[in-house]
């Protein structure tokens, strides 16, 4: 509440000059862009939906974006559009009996995926739960902050996009700016999203995040290995989410998602659900597995399990 009133004051007592300045800037925004800047602005405005781009058009778009980001951050940023691999459907396993709640995955994800540092956007949320109560969210502590973890009597449950087989978020998008790819990853076209946030209302896992302000991403922190549908720098006013590190996992040879790689206790597992020999398949078949909010029939490809 105090934050809000601070914000009110900030807004209402803004000097007249500043208001006029922003008015002028706004009119500038609305007005037709000048001749020099115009080409790329118009190109961006009229850019087609990702899935309607021809090969050549996609190339042009990627060239334009690479140029834009490289200028913006003062270093070469690469944008890929690697398609799904045939015969692959990604699945994720998380061992609740191992997770210690250190949040290394949260920050590894931020580093890998170019999330805004200010305001902070996290694709992974770790909840501290009571062992006595089990997975009872009404007693979850989201902002636990002790000197050391794990704390006695507690266990930890990281939540990120569950990459549902029946994603409620893609169904509701009024412009098809988000969809499930053939390898099961739910992606967003940041150049197509209108920012209505209906998907955020529809997601039962809080996995979708909105760029409320201009993303604050310092040039030194930029991961230059990016994917169009994943970790490329985002504009303000669009929704973003976990993509199982699409820029890593779709490569051949593939790499593990950043959260999987960093986990100090090996609580995170990742693999191909269509490969009967994969570790993830072994876990599903041999461990005690549960999926989050099963009753909603979203059919996550994210499996919580207890290995011990």
């Amino acid at each position: 509440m105090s934050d809000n009133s601070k914000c009110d004051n900030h807004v209402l007592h803004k000097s007249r000059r500043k208001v006029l300045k922003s008015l002028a800037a706004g009119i500038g925004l609305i007005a037709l862009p000048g001749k020099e800047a115009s080409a790329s602005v118009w190109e961006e405005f009229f850019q087609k939906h990702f899935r309607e781009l021809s090969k050549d058009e996609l190339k042009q778009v990627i060239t334009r974006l690479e140029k834009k980001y490289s200028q913006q951050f003062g270093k070469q940023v690469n944008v890929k559009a690697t398609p799904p691999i045939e015969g692959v459907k990604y699945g994720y396993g998380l061992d609740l009996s191992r997770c210690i709640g250190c949040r290394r995955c949260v920050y590894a994800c931020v580093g890998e995926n170019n999330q805004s540092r200010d305001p902070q956007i996290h694709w992974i949320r770790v909840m501290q739960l009571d062992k006595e109560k089990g997975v009872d969210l009404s007693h979850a502590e989201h902002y636990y902050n002790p000197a050391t973890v794990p704390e006695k009597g507690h266990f930890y449950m990281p939540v990120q996009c569950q990459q549902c087989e029946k994603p409620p978020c893609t169904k509701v998008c009024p412009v098809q700016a988000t969809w499930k790819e053939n390898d099961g990853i739910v992606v967003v076209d940041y150049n197509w999203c209108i920012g209505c946030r209906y998907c955020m209302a529809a997601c039962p896992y809080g996995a979708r995040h909105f760029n409320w302000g201009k993303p604050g991403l310092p040039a030194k922190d930029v991961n230059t290995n990016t994917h169009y549908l994943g970790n490329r720098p985002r504009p303000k006013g669009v929704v973003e989410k976990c993509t199982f590190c699409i820029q890593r996992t779709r490569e051949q040879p593939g790499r593990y998602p950043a959260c999987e790689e960093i986990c100090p206790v090996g609580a995170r597992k990742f693999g191909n659900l269509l490969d009967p020999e994969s570790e993830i398949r072994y876990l599903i078949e041999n461990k005690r597995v549960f999926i989050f909010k099963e009753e909603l029939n979203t059919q996550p490809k994210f499996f919580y399990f207890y290995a011990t």
Partner: protein
Amino acid sequence: MKNIWHFFTGTLVLVSKGSKAYYGWVLILLTLMAIGATAYVQQMNEGLIITSMRDQVSWGFYISNFTFLVGVAAAAVLLVIPAYVYHWKPIKEIAVLGELLAVSAIVMCLLFVTADLGHPERFWHLIPKIGRLNFPQSLLAWDVVVLNTYLALNLTIAVYILYSLYYKRTPNKSFTTPLLLLSIPSAISIHTVTAFLYNGLGARPFWNSSILVPRFLASAFCSGPAFMIIIFFLVRKYTKFRIDDKAIQKVAELIAYAMFVNLLLLGAELFKEYYTASAHLAPVQYLFQGLHGHSALVPWIWTAMVFNITAFFLFLVPDTRRNNVTLMIACILVFVGVYIEKGMGLVIPGFIPDVLHEIYEYSPTGVELLISMGIWATGLFVFTMLLRVAIPILNGDFHVADDGVGSFIGDQLFLVQQGPEDVAKPVDFGDEYAD
């Protein structure tokens, strides 16, 4: 074609004329609109971070206003049905005002949704063929379709009738009747679809209840007509337009029934949640009692409850319903009550607690309030302009001049307090039109 142009230029001349009160009112609205526009420019520059919406509560004041106004718009149907299905004359004379209110309300709805978008300039992504409207999967796509259909229908009907009367013709029934009949299911559809938009989300137990659509409709049939009655009183007091008490009484009676159904459905909802007392009770508790010490909405929802119940009795008891003062009070109570209940009271508890049971309390920032005020002013401005044209036409004070080109303007003032002797008799197009 020429006629349309002459009609159009005639209306422009007409709206530029008026009493000091009219100019003052319009000036106030334009000022509020300018303030709202300035705030919106600021929001465009800095992003929606300037609101207090966050990931936990991702829709707020804008969408609350939108939801409420869809109800107001849908309620025009309560005038259309008695007027054109039952050919009840006292309401037929005023049904056009209902259609114009619907138009203004939809304009506000569209503006509120636009204000809520992160990228409003990408609106063309919603246009079928050019963009990629996700129809029929997304209920928001449905809403885009039905809202625009409803807007087009009401605008066409009202403008066509007014245009015909301006040229002293009887509106062609074979043109208006199908459109009017279509506008009835269309009115119901905008509110049903808007309710479905929330209703279909399994992630949000507060909205995921099958009673939501009937609740939406019942409350819409309270708030919209209540607003209509307030407008009728004002129009009757400040313009030369005559509105029959019988019409107002009929509308008031309808509100009493609608409010009864609304309260009944609310009671059913509350019983189910509290008696079951499952985990899904949390948002209801947040709304009515507060949850874990967070209770921002509690005083509001109880205000709404008291207002709605008081208004229900004022509408129900014949003496208070027939008394213009108590009737006016009841209308204001209903309007405010439903504004709270179907606005913030419906949208915000959908997000509190959020899907991972975090509690983030939301209350709109100054910019959100200013932009919303600007949008309300825009809606009232549109409505004022429409009435400025419609009322003189219906009164026979604005029509084509004898030369067939220019226009005759009999009402230079528009907004003046009326004594009983000033009251004009409206153009009688009801009878021959009815048969």
